[in-house]
Every structure is written in structure tokens, then in C-alpha cells.
């Protein structure tokens, strides 16, 4: 959404229309008619974001030139070169142009371009108050170009070549359009607003002049800002945007046209130096705005971090241990560790000694149930590293060897029942029924 102001330098006054423009709507805010002095006051107070200027000076030159059909990007450069070549006598000027169309002449295709030449000196003079008040002018358009835009954007059965008349009160502007391009303009003085006999004669004479000199015959004539104009004018009812009063067309047609139907950049008459300086300022403004936003973000982050740091410092203070307490804990811990370190080797010795298998412990757990005819003659328990070797010898005076063997096996089974005991060799000597049993105990 932006607030736009269109300033029109007319013969009798400066007319301004400000409007709120959004993507879908255009709403008129105010329409003013000011003098030169009042314009300064207006500019010092107005809040519009951008300004568009329409101007219709008598010394503007309208001309149709022919150029070769070239790429659109090259047209501006060729038109500029062509006009500077044909008018070396003119002071520096700015050009607004519109392509009428291509035609064939003498077997060659040529492109006809309608141009408007406006002296830079005049344009700079118009821009001065805006520069003084630091206002950005986004376009300067010739009033006939703005009005042409209004005419071609109004759906009607009007002919391609048309004479349009614009009533500025004490001055009438007549312009000839071909396919929306301004071929020729003429400004004639008038007694008052409206179309009297003399004014209508001027229209008729202009039509004749066009036919005789330009070889162009307008198919009709319309009065852009007059209600019920007399002949030779035909009816013309432009479309007025809903946000504008219906009567605005009578006094502010160029402003309405420029707001409702923006002109292409090719019809912008702003001097190149101004455009370049404005671009620089825009770039600086955008950069500044970016950095202002970034600075605001940084400030915001600083505030947030400030709060976070305050909270963290509170946390830290609550967690921080008094140095005396820390010192006493560390000292106590160190002393305790030193004491433990001193006894640790002894504890290791104690543990290793007690980890060794105990022969008395094994002998205490051995339990033999009475076995018939088994006599244990000797028992040896010997420690070997982490195990105890146990060997038993004796006799089994059984008449049968099988019986002796089964008693021996029973003895072995009793030994195996002891926790951690692994049975080894069991030998029965059949000559004398002596036996030996070996076992290993590993707790």
C-alpha cells in the first residue's frame, strides 16, 4: 500500500491529486489546485511516498521519426541518437517515446516512433522544489501521453486516428493520436472553460492541418474533460476508478490517467542525471534500512542475552561453593585417599592371601559316609597355586574285584559331591585290592 501524488503543471495552476494505491484498489485522498507558492507548503507537509508529474509546456516538441526495426532494448538508444542528429540546435533534452508500429515504405520496413522532446532545463526547474523537500519523483510524463493512456484504455468504438481535446480553461490542447501514440499537439488560447465557436473552429482547422501537412485524417474528435461537448466532438466517457468522484475527470484528467493507467518507462521524461542520483539514493536508503533492521535485531538479541546472562549469573551464584568448604572437602579427601593408598598394598596382600584355597577348609567340608570294606590308609592334601590336590590310598578287601571297584566308585562319587572337586585317577590294584584316588579341588 502506498500513497501517491500526481502533480500536474497546467497553464493556469498546479493541480494535485493524492491517492492510496494497493494491488487491487485506487482511492482518491485529495484533489488540490495550488499556486507555485502553495506547492512549497504542500510539499513540506505531504506524506506521499512517491510523486508523479505531468507537464504540458508550450515548448515541448512532438515529432514522429522512422527507425529501422530493431530489438526493443535498442530502440531508446536509436531514438536518442536520431533525435540528437536531427536537432543539433536544441539544448539538452529528455525524450519520451512510443512505437506506433511497423510499415513498409519503398519496399523497406520502417518503424514509426512518436516522440516528445522536453528541455532538461525546464524539467530540472520542475524538479527543484521536490529535491528541496527531499521528495522522490518517480516519473515525469507529458500530459498528452497521460491523456492518450486514458483514451486508449477506455473501451469504445473510436477510430485508430483520433483528435483529442483537453480543456485547461484559458488554454485548449489538441492532440492527434494514432494507435494511442501522440503524433501532434497544438495549444490554443481560449476565453474560458468550455468549447465556444472559436474553439470549435480551431478544432476543425487542426483536423484540416493534420490532413494537409501530416497526411493524417483523424476519424473523429473527442473532448476528454467536457460534459456534453458540442459537435464536432463525439461522446467520450472514460472509466473512472471506483475510489474517485465522478466529477474529477473535468478538472484532473491527467492525474486520473496517470494514476489509473501507469505509463511505460519509455515515456518517462526525467533527466538521466536525476534518475542516476535517485537510484544511488534509493540504494543507500535500502542499505540503511537493512542495517537499521539488523541493528534493531542486534539490540533485541542483546536484551534477550542480557536477561539470560542475569538468570545464569543467579544460577551460578546459587551453585558456587564457598572456598573454605571446598578447601576442607579437598583436604579431607586427600588425607583419606593418602591413608587408603598407604594401606592398599596391605589390603591387596590380605585379599590375595585369603583368596588362596584353604586346605583346612577343604578337609572340614569333606564328609565320607561309611563304606563297607573301604579302609583309607592315607590322605594327602597339597596346595598347588590356586587348587588343592587331594590323594587317598587304602584297601578294599572285597572278595570280588567288581565289588571292590564299585566301592571305589562310590568313594569317588562321594568325593565328587564336594563342591569344587574334580575327580582324577582312580586305580584299583587287583593283586592286593589296594586303591588310590586323586582329585583336584578348586574353589
Amino acid at each position: 500500500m502506498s500513497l501517491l501524488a500526481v502533480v500536474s503543471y497546467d497553464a493556469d495552476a498546479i493541480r494535485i491529486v493524492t491517492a492510496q494505491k494497493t494491488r487491487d484498489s485506487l482511492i482518491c485522498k485529495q484533489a488540490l489546485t495550488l499556486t507555485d507558492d502553495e506547492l512549497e507548503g504542500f510539499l513540506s507537509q505531504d506524506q506521499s511516498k512517491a510523486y508523479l508529474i505531468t507537464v504540458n509546456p508550450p515548448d515541448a516538441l512532438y515529432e514522429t521519426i522512422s527507425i529501422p526495426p530493431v530489438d526493443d532494448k535498442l530502440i531508446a538508444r536509436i531514438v536518442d541518437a536520431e533525435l540528437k542528429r536531427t536537432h543539433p540546435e536544441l539544448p539538452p533534452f529528455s525524450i519520451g517515446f512510443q512505437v506506433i508500429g511497423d510499415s513498409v515504405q519503398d519496399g523497406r520496413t520502417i518503424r514509426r516512433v512518436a516522440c516528445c522532446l522536453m528541455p532538461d532545463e525546464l524539467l530540472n526547474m520542475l524538479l527543484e522544489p521536490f529535491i528541496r523537500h527531499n521528495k522522490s519523483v518517480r516519473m515525469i510524463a507529458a500530459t498528452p501521453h497521460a491523456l492518450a493512456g486514458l483514451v486508449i484504455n477506455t473501451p469504445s468504438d473510436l477510430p485508430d486516428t483520433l483528435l483529442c481535446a483537453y480543456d485547461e480553461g484559458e488554454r485548449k490542447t489538441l492532440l492527434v493520436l494514432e494507435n494511442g501514440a501522440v503524433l501532434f499537439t497544438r495549444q490554443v488560447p481560449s476565453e474560458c472553460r468550455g468549447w465556444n465557436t472559436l474553439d470549435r473552429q480551431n478544432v476543425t482547422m487542426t483536423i484540416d492541418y493534420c490532413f494537409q501537412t501530416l497526411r493524417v485524417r483523424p476519424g473523429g474528435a473527442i473532448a476528454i474533460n467536457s460534459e456534453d461537448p458540442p459537435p464536432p466532438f463525439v461522446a467520450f466517457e472514460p472509466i473512472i476508478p471506483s475510489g474517485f468522484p465522478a466529477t474529477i475527470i473535468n478538472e484532473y484528467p491527467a492525474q486520473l490517467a496517470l494514476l489509473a493507467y501507469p505509463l511505460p518507462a519509455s515515456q518517462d521524461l526525467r533527466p538521466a542525471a536525476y534518475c542516476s542520483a535517485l537510484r544511488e539514493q534509493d540504494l543507500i536508503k535500502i542499505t540503511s534500512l537493512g542495517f537499521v533492521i539488523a541493528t534493531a535485531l542486534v539490540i533485541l538479541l542483546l536484551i534477550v542475552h542480557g536477561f539470560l546472562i542475569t538468570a545464569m549469573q543467579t544460577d551460578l551464584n546459587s551453585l558456587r561453593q564457598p572456598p573454605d568448604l571446598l578447601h576442607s572437602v579437598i583436604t579431607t579427601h586427600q588425607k583419606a585417599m593418602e591413608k587408603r593408598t598407604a594401606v592398599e598394598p596391605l589390603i591387596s596382600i590380605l585379599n590375595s592371601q585369603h583368596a588362596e584355597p584353604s586346605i583346612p577348609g577343604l578337609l572340614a567340608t569333606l564328609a565320607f559316609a561309611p563304606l563297607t570294606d573301604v579302609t583309607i590308609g592315607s590322605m594327602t592334601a597339597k596346595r598347588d597355586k590356586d587348587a588343592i590336590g587331594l590323594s587317598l590310598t587304602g584297601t578294599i578287601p572285597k572278595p570280588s574285584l567288581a565289588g571292590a571297584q564299585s566301592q571305589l566308585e562310590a568313594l569317588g562319587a562321594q568325593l565328587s559331591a564336594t563342591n569344587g572337586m574334580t575327580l582324577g585317577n582312580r586305580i584299583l590294584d587287583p593283586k592286593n585290592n589296594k586303591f588310590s584316588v586323586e582329585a583336584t579341588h578348586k574353589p
Partner: protein
Amino acid sequence: MIAAMQRQTRQKLIKLGIILICFTLLASLLSVVIRYKEMLARTITNQKTIFQNVGRMRLAAKDADKTVADFKSLLPPAYGTHTPEWLVYSRIDDLKSRLQATEMVIKAIENKEGMVAVDFSATLPLRDSGTYSRIINLLGNQETLAFPFVSVRSVQVDQSGSETQQALKLVMEGVVQMPAPQEVSQ
């Protein structure tokens, strides 16, 4: 016109410069603040660790004290006041008097692998099963004692004598050992 525009451009450039300086200063300050905050976060983490470690150190000190106290309770009263050799011989004397061996061979004191050790062997008559149990219990009890340590290496129970007058004897070998001198704070 151009001069006026250039003047405005210059003014805008000065403003942009001021904004840039402010931005740079504030961004630098923000960078410092962020680093300070990170440092503060690390300090808080460290303080939390210290807070936890203080508790752990207290517990560890208490554990260590308990371990040392428990260990000291295992030491004989004479520990620290007498030499390891004296303690070893004292235990040998004790064994000698308790075992009532018919024969007891005590070897010379040795110092090996950081231990002061005395090997011994004893021969005991087993008159009845009660004697066997008493000896086994006695040896088991001696093995549970600490400083010095009694370690029974072998036990052999044999029948000896003629067929009419058979007798049981128990031959045992063992060692009494003690760590070589070390300072243990009392």
C-alpha cells in the same frame, strides 16, 4: 539540481555510515556477550560438576576412612609396635603351643618377594577323631588371621606302626609370613 541531489546523497551516506558504525559496535558487543554467555554456561556446567564432585568426594573420603578403619580392626594389637619378624615368630610360638606337635621343624626366616616368611612343618598324633577336628579347626582359624598370615601348604594323614598297634599321624607343612616393613599410620 545535481549539486542538491549530491548533497542529499552525501547526507544519506553519512547517515548510512553512522548506522554502519552503530551496527558494527553493537554486533561486536553481541559477539562478546554471546561468548560471555557461552563461558558462563560452561562455568555453570563446571560448577554443577564441582557440586556433584564435592558430594562424591565426601562419600569417597568416608568410604576410604571406613576401609582404613575396617582394615585396622584386622591388625593385631602388636602391629606397628613390633617388627614383622617378631610378629612372625610370635605366631609360630602361638601355633607351637596350640598344636602340641610331637615334632615341629621351623626353618630359618627368609625374606622373599617383599614378605618375611618362616616355613614350618609339624607332626601330630591323631589319637581320636576329636583330635583331627580340633587340629583342622585350629588350622582353619589360624588361616583366617591376618598379619602375619598362616598358610597351610600340605596336610598328610597316615597310618603308622604295626598291624596290631596302628596309629594315625598328621603331618603338615606351612608358612607364616608377613609383609616386609611398611609404614602404616595408626
